């Protein structure tokens, strides 16, 4: 792997390897001294054209626990917000000697452009681009699913074969959904997308997933996990696209509440990429229930991002699975 741009280009072997490495990283995090010397002297740049404190902190923590130097380059209050181009910013970072660029950008494909432009020699890690992809989120979701649902013990080497996962909410605007559909499919899980028709993209029929407009029907099929997507309230207004009539109607049809939670199988878990809109797509009962693994997802995020940074940056390791993912 030279870059991590999309889960769509990860092979089964590469995906399992990242999850296994994340497991090893997580084990080190249980120790008293969490810091590993692995990436000492390497520089990781967090290039955030879009605000996301939680994702930035997760990557920053991951890089620092591997002893990398971290530069945070945020669009807010910098020349980027004054219209400096992606290209000029990338050239600046290149001059600073970035070994890896973690990029969050509002434009779909910006990490792809950065990786293929020749503007930087560093590894490019997509930390969320527009409505396209957020591969480390999908990897941490898969990691979390594997830990809980594949039979206990050390899950190393396992995939998600046969698991049934429902992804519920604003699929149309969700990079989390796109990344998860591709990765979970690669790992052998069966994915069902659940949303009102307005929040599903034209073209979704080509995705390796089932589609349903009815959450209750999908819950009746006893899925192993439900992944709730964030829904922005402004999507209902006319200027926001008018995707649904009211938050109340959305919640009635697609919100995860106590009743729906109770209808799920005992072993099933609830995921959410955060930040949550409590009371809209998920009720407090559901968010705080023991089967919600939302807080654990955050911790797993650090381990997965450590694994990705490690696999992309630790020298000869990368040759073994050299693909332009």
């Amino acid at each position, binding site marked *: 792997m030279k870059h991590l741009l999309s889960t769509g280009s990860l092979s089964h072997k590469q995906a399992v390897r990242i999850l296994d490495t994340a497991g090893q990283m997580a084990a080190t995090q249980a120790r008293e001294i969490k810091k590993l010397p692995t990436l000492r002297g390497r520089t990781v740049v967090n290039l955030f054209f879009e605000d996301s404190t939680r994702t930035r902190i997760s990557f920053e923590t991951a890089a620092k626990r591997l002893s990398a130097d971290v530069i945070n380059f945020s669009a807010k209050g910098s020349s980027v917000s004054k219209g400096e181009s992606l290209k000029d910013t990338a050239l600046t970072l290149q001059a600073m000697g970035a070994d890896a660029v973690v990029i969050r950008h509002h434009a*779909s494909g910006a990490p792809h452009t950065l990786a293929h432009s020749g503007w930087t020699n560093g590894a490019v890690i997509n930390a969320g*681009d527009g409505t396209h992809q957020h591969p480390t989120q999908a990897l941490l979701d898969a990691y979390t699913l594997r830990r809980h649902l594949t039979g206990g013990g050390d899950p190393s080497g396992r995939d998600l074969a046969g698991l049934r996962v429902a992804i519920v909410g604003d699929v149309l605007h969700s990079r989390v959904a796109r990344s998860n559909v591709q990765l979970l499919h690669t790992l052998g899980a069966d994915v069902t997308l659940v949303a009102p028709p307005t929040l599903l993209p034209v*073209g979704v029929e080509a995705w390796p997933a089932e589609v349903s407009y009815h959450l209750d029907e999908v819950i009746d099929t006893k899925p192993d996990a439900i992944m709730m997507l964030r829904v922005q309230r402004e999507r209902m207004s006319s200027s926001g696209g008018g995707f649904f009539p009211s938050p109340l109607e959305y919640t009635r049809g697609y919100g995860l509440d106590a009743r729906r939670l109770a209808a799920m199988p005992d072993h099933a878990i609830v995921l959410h990429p955060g930040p949550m809109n409590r009371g809209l797509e998920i009720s407090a009962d559901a968010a705080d229930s023991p089967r919600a693994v939302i807080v654990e997802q955050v911790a797993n995020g650090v381990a997965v991002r450590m694994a990705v940074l490690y696999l992309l940056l630790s020298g000869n390791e990368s040759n073994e699975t050299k693909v332009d993912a």
Partner: protein
Amino acid sequence: MSTGRKYLLQNVAPYGGERTTVLLADGVIAAIGTDVTDDDATIIDGRGLVLLPGLVDLHTHLREPGREDAETIRTGTRAAALGGFTAVHAMANTTPTQDTAGVVEQVWSLGREAGWADVHPIGAVTVGLEGERLAELGAMAESKAQVRVFSDDGKCVHDPVLMRRALEYVKAFDGVVAQHAQEPRLTEGAQMHEGIVSAELGLAGWPAVAEEAIIARDVLLAEHVGSRLHVCHLSTAGSVEIIRWAKSRGIDVTAEVTPHHLILTDELARGYDPTFKVNPPLRTQRDVEAVRAGLADGTIDIVATDHAPHTREDKDCEWAAAAFGMTGLETALSVVQETMVDTGRLTWADVARVLSETPARIGRVSDHGRPIAVGEPANLVLVDPAARRVINPDEQATKSGNSPFRGRDLSGCVVATFLRGRATVMGGASCDEDVVARA
């Protein structure tokens, strides 16, 4: 305006038919026949070459005035000549907009000074392309530029009342409204064709229906007020069906397709290379098949380039930030040959029709798109259909490098172009700039 120079085109095949020899003198076709000869003429060995009337582009963005960093009338018309064109229609979305007699006359006279091809300015339909009130269409029609084609291209005249008024008003001077069919509400923030590829790439979709809905409305408006309508760069299978239906009803509508929509698809967006970002967007293979079929059966009347040069800054960035458009003047004929002639769907006579005669007729340009016959203006192009060439935008005459065909091997090349008997292109290269401009 005699150049004093005569050309004897020996053994050329007019419209790809029987070989003959054609003498150009005093700006006209002076003689045609296997036994024609002239001791003073420059002799061109035309064996294997097809002779066509000079091409006429109904849809060219020359960018001057306002964006001379992307193209000028001089560089754009030189590119046109190299592509076999002797006349181009310059789109109105310049800065300032071509919405007054003053601006269209400026563009017209800059074209005359450059001398590479005749420039026929297109007038804006509405002031500043704002879609709010009609520009002074009559003044542009009566100006020295004699504007006959009006378009807000780049934007759609989406207000149905305004569109109706424009269609009616231009009847007074035999004008035509050329519509960029794009329903604005359905395409807010749109980045590429809405379908399987956009769903995966997470790029906001430009649905086919946003084009088709406007075309359907406009053909009905044109029928209602008895006006003629021209549809720019039609790109979808559904649009072809609507035009076919409208023509069957006797509605006075013409339609164009671009070379890129004849050959490229939305799959090219997968690399997020903004070279392939264009409006209307590249569609699916099914749409490509439909526009080829429409061009072959005459539903689509013409091919027009929508040559849209952009500076490197406007393309060297992330997809969403990039400008829409691709260059096309220097590759149009090759794409038509490759997709339509080499496949047996059009003859060279058909090519003359779709790239010269009909665009000239739609634009009411009287001295281009004429028959290859004695006494006619010597606006001609000589094509070598057997040639193959690899496209390198860095070597093109257009000032911009945003050709979607970089590195691609295409059929055919232009050997020579004649504008009123003067060579603007010879041996596949531009003639001397001063000679061209002085003539």
